[in-house]
């Protein structure tokens, strides 16, 4: 066994180095060979992938308990356990062949950008899933937050202002107002679930309907009367559109500000879930509520906090969506909760509560976005995209459930 293990380590290191070398060769060869329009940024990707694998092989040498077993029996298991990930990789290769433009750094960055708001949503909704609940109000909170923040962030000269006499306020006021409004509804969610032990499905369904109605009322206020909000102030739009390191080398499109924002939130949520008493309580309540009560955990307070924290994240996501698109309607965010739940589930968050990791959620969101983006990229009909999306969710959960049964 030990021999086998060191073989896999070697495989990773050597394989990684080979890919790395190939990437470097291609990088310098693509200009003279005239491959620029055929392989785009593939060499850069190869270099990065090679580096990743080589490092992984190198690192696993250091700590032997974290080894990778490629024995024939466990290899089959490995395949089923990572079926979705592998399917995604196959899809990526197919797309690269069909449409070489996919191999561009700007495409990879665009995928990460589109993942950012989805990740924030998924991180919010995972709390509800961790206590064996769900949150149907998430999408509508995005809409509410988008409409509120956009309504106060219009340029003074725009013809159709939501608040014609509003001065050019600091951008933090509308953001705070939008997020607070969401947190208010989050508190309502938490109260209904904690106080009446209502199933989160019903509690958040009720809140969802209330939010959409309230948001539509706000959106319909004269003089706006349900017109799409436009004329967004550039400084506000920057929050979602700004790009960092733009042009550090010729043609570099820059990294969307959304990526670092979601990364920071990701780290904070990881910290909250893994290093705080609250995080441990979330897992405890999700694992066994009665036991948590007996253990002296204040379930009421924790559930309240779960839904308020989640709604805070949805609020942020809504502000970012409004800024990114420089506009808002009350229909923003519609259906985002299902995408977020699906991403969580694909990322290994159990619907029966208590199980789920931030790393898994990140993977789930990325897998989903890559597949969606890739299918759109090669012009697969939206109807087929829906079918494929559904199949992925079903397969992911099926695999997950068999995995836990085996244990």
């Amino acid at each position: 066994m030990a021999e086998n293990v060191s073989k896999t380590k070697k495989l990773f290191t050597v394989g990684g180095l080979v890919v790395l070398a190939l990437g470097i060769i291609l990088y310098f060869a693509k200009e003279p060979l005239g491959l620029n329009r055929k392989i785009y940024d593939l060499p850069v990707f190869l270099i990065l992938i090679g580096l990743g694998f080589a490092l992984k092989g190198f690192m696993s040498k250091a700590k032997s308990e974290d080894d990778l077993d490629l024995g024939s029996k466990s290899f089959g298991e490995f395949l089923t356990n990572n079926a979705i990930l592998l399917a995604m990789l196959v899809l990526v290769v197919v797309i690269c062949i069909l449409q070489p433009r996919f191999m561009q750094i700007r495409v990879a960055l665009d995928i990460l950008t589109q993942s950012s708001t989805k990740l924030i949503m998924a991180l919010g909704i995972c709390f509800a899933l961790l206590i064996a609940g769900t949150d149907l109000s998430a999408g509508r909170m995005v809409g509410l937050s988008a409409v509120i923040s956009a309504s106060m962030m219009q340029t003074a000269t725009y013809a159709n202002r939501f608040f014609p006499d509003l001065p050019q306020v600091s951008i933090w006021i509308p953001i705070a107002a939008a997020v607070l409004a969401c947190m208010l509804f989050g508190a309502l969610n938490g109260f209904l679930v904690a106080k009446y032990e209502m199933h989160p499905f019903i509690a958040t369904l009720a809140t969802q309907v209330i939010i959409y109605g309230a948001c539509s009322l706000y959106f319909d206020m004269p003089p706006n009367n349900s017109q799409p909000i436009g004329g967004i102030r550039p400084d506000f739009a920057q929050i979602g559109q700004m790009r960092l390191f733009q042009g550090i080398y010729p043609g570099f499109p820059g990294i969307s500000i959304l990526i670092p924002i979601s990364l920071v939130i990701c780290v904070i949520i990881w910290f909250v879930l893994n290093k705080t008493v609250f995080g441990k309580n979330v897992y405890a309540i999700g694992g066994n509520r009665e036991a948590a009560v007996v253990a002296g955990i204040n379930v009421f307070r924790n559930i309240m906090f779960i839904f308020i924290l989640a709604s805070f994240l949805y609020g942020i996501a809504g502000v970012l969506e409004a800024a990114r698109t420089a506009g808002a309607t009350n229909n923003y965010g519609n259906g985002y909760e299902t995408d977020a739940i699906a991403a969580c589930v694909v990322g290994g968050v159990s619907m029966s509560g208590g199980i789920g990791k931030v790393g898994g959620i990140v993977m789930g969101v990325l897998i989903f976005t890559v597949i969606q983006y890739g299918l759109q990229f090669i012009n697969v009909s939206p109807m087929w995209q829906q079918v494929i999306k559904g199949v992925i969710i079903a397969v992911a959960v099926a695999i997950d459930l068999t995995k836990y049964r085996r244990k």
Partner: protein
Amino acid sequence: MRKLFLILLTFLLIFSFTAFANADEIKIGACIYRFNDAFMLRFRNAMGDEAAKLGAKIEMADGRDDQTTQNEQIENFIAEGVNVLIINPVDRMASQPVIDKAKSAGIPVVFINREPASEMLDSYEKAYYVGAKAEESGIEAGELIAEYFKSHPEADKNHDGKLQFVMLKGQNGHQDMILRSKYSVEAIKNAGIEPVEIASAIANWDKLQAMNIMNGFAMSIGPENIEAVIANNDEMALGAVEALKNSDYNKGDKDFYIPVVGVDANASALDAMDKGEMLGTVLNDADNQGKAAVRLANALASGGDVKSIGYEVTDNKYIWIPYQKVTRGEKK
């Protein structure tokens, strides 16, 4: 039980009082496919203003984009005793039952915005349609692009004399979506330019969807290969503009510009046009359509002459309100 009976009786009394209070006032029942629609909003405002001017009472119902809901609302209006119906159908192909209901109640019905098939309208002599010829909006959007292409030789990015365009379409099956898509291309052809559709997608009239789709096109096709973007409405055109800005196009640099056209002339589109981000749009004249619909309904309900309402009635069935081209600098 007796208490309940008494309460019911009181309610009935109140109802009958309100019902008879303004018996001779003309009551118009208007069913809108969805309130939350920028265009229908302008339409509603125009109808409300005109009704107030004419001294008619207009009640509007929100169909919430659901034909079943709308049918119930129509039945309610008929039961309430409205004198005339104005219907903005959710599904224009499902208008026959609506016409039958109006016919059996003997009240005139004016369809707006979404045109029922002519054989449906022909089945009832008091059925009318007020709207714009959807193909006209497509033609004018296409003409905007063709005019730009002719006056700006640099717009032909690959110098092949053809026009490589991307089309962003509205909801699948919607009459406006079909006709605008078809006739905008026709108009380009008629202007003597060969159009080449390099990509098209359905973005459901929605800015966010259009933005994500256009983002994808900018990546997969490359903005340097796109010579025009034709959107079925302004919101989608604006979504495309945001996506192009994301690829550093349409930000003011003439070398990095793709002409984008929409339809509707809403406030955000006019704003984008002033900034030079969008080429132009076509105004679907909601004000005149709303006015014409209410005037026609009022004339029908009061037995007045439909010829004297200030709008031409063609074939004794249709009032056509023309579209208007809007380009940069001519704010309405």
